[in-house]
């Protein structure tokens, strides 16, 4: 048998082993970089989701000021856990816009009464169409959008207390 053929299995195995070593050594990251980052928000106009607050349109997000867009629902339990963080972000001067997914005005009213209202506007997305177009697969999700309507970052799942400072800084930097 030829010299080279004899050692080929070992060489192949070492290549395979290196790949597996990499697989073990790679940082165990569950963060997925959103495909939406850098993209403009889709064009939409949503009617008001509840009395007393305006609805939301994509043109509101391209009017020169950066925003935090929060996709949520009154029926979503993690959204309740997220409420204090949204409040803190709004109190820091960041305009927070809501998109309520498959919700009812009276349920939304109760949700805001119980958990506080950080929103300047809430659009009613009754068929999840805007949610899907934003590249969101669940509630809650939040997007930092710059003054031109471009998505700067996406948070999948509830915003945790340790995330607040970063989001506020990101919105300030986008001014």
């Amino acid at each position: 048998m030829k010299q080279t053929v004899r050692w080929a299995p070992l060489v192949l195995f070492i290549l395979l082993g290196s790949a597996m070593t990499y697989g073990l050594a790679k940082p165990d990251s569950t963060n997925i970089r959103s495909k939406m980052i850098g993209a403009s928000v889709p064009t939409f106009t949503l009617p008001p989701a509840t009395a007393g607050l305006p609805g939301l349109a994509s043109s509101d997000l391209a009017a020169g000021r950066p925003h935090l867009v929060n996709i949520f629902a009154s029926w979503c339990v993690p959204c309740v856990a997220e409420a204090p963080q949204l409040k803190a972000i709004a109190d820091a001067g960041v305009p927070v816009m809501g998109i309520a997914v498959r919700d009812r005005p009276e349920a939304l009213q109760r949700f805001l009464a119980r958990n506080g209202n950080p929103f300047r506007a809430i659009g009613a997305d009754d068929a999840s169409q805007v949610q899907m177009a934003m590249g969101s697969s669940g509630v809650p999700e939040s997007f930092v959008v710059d003054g031109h309507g471009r998505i700067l970052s996406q948070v999948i799942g509830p915003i945790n207390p340790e995330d607040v400072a970063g989001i506020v800084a990101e919105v300030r930097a986008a001014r």
Partner: protein
Amino acid sequence: MIAEAGLAALWLGAALCALQLVAAGLAVRGQDALAGIVRPVAVAQAALTALAFALLILLFVRVDLSVALVFENDHSAKPFLYRFAAAWGNHEGSMLMWVAILTVAGAAVALFERKLEERTLLATLGGQAAIGLGFYAFLLFASNPFARLFPVPPEGRGLNPLLQDPGLAFHPPTLYLGYVGLSVAFSFAIGALLTRDVGPAFARAMRPWVLGAWIFLTIGITAGSYWAYYELGWGGWWFWDPVENASLMPWLAATALLHSVTVLATRDGLRAWTLMLAVLAFSMSMIGTFLVRSGILTSVHAFAVDPRRGSFLLALLFIYIGGALALFGARVGTVREGSRFDPISREAGLVANNLLLSAILGIVLVGTLYPLLVEAATGTKLSVGPPYFNAAAGPLALILVAIMAAGPLLRWRRDNLKPLARRIAPAAILALAVLAAVKLAAPTIHILSLLGLSLAAGLALASVAPLWKRNLLRTPLFVWGMVVAHLGVAVSLAGMACDSSFTVEKLVAARVGERVAVGPYSITLDAIDPTFAENWQALQATLLVRRGEGDTLTLTPQARAYWAPPTETSETAIHTALDGQLYTVIGKQAADGRWQLRLWWKPFVTLIWAGGALIALGGALALVGRVWRGRRKPAEQWL
């Protein structure tokens, strides 16, 4: 005390294993002072690990919550069988089972192997001890199953409810018997490379061990496939999941080995290749274990994953596989080349079989590791799904089936095309007839399914052809084994093709009292009732099933909720008829009060597993035939 006794048994076993390695190593180098103790030590070692495993099972059955592993995986409300099975439904317990089987296999070699030359046998037992030592270290330093817990908690954390199924009691142990049984072939190859003793006698000695492991692997894979089919409730029987692939790859390598070892035993050909396959088969077992246990690939089977232990296992992989392949590279040049053969001969058919099996193995390996390789190269996460595997491995598998039909009809050493054509003609005609008939009956059928059905028919006929004009009573048992196993492949292939092309699936939202038609059945949702058992509660649908004017049957699929740990599962209800299965799953209730029902009519799907069982039965017949004949006429030239 039981846990401490188990740990002590493991440490003693490890010490004996080291002794076995040293004594065998000295014997191979020509110093026979300790040669006499190798066999008894191997047996004593196996007794100790078997004792440790039995003690672990005892701890689980008694729900001794002062042991951390029992606390994590057991629960006093769990039925007895599942408390028993919980002992190996977790990382530490399954690794202890691995070591126990490894050492018992070594002991079996020490006790029963009589054909192998003594020095090669000692080298083989040395190889077995070398593998054992690494896995003892893994158990004792990185996965101690007997670690205590203080303070003692009042109740255990239960077991994954998907695993609370009779299938679990037998599926992992059979697979492990197969995986670890292949270690014997690996050690044989190491022994033969060390002593340069490769030939027909070596092959005949190795063959029963390969056959034994292969039978268990076949049963394990078949049972696992059926378990996933009825337990997961997705209606599929194979998902090309990394863990499934991890069991398929050693099987492919072992199947190739099984055939090449026959060439070596009968015609003294394929020496280096057979050694390579013996190393490869167990390497695939270890790589499979590593992939499953380390969690570097995402899988639905990730029941017991720990990346920290991954580095330990990876180091073992480098030592054993790397070491064996280095030994192969260094020594195989000194293995005398085997005898040659004609391009049209049984040997050539078996070589084609080996190349195709290896190619399929390569495709599965690449597909399984591709996500990892791509992430290493570009940082992108992706997954490889059934479309790749089916498109890449499917055609090769069909060619393999065609060769499988012709192979047993070829003569050893040299044959001619003309007589072969005459022998294969009936099968070829049948295959073409089925091809035409199916194409006429179902013009839109997928090409792979069409060819699958046609080749299955041809193979079924061709595989019984070796019995033609033979005295069936005097036909050796191992010929029967080949016939039955090849027939099993035909049966299984027919089931796969039928399932993939003729399955009818219906997803409906039904009110109580509503009637739905699926395939030949009409199904009425009669009632939805709550029901419960000691560790779950469920919503149970009562389906009244009627076929034509026949009797009405009742099927009761359930949506179960377990509470330790809280998990929801769906229990399928399956009605098996002669010509297929009706498969029913109940889903959620919609807002308007209707219930989701998923209903499948799967014609001839049972053939898939019946074929798997036939393949294993063929293996068992061959094993019994070989061992029996070997006892009776040890010196005779084998067929």
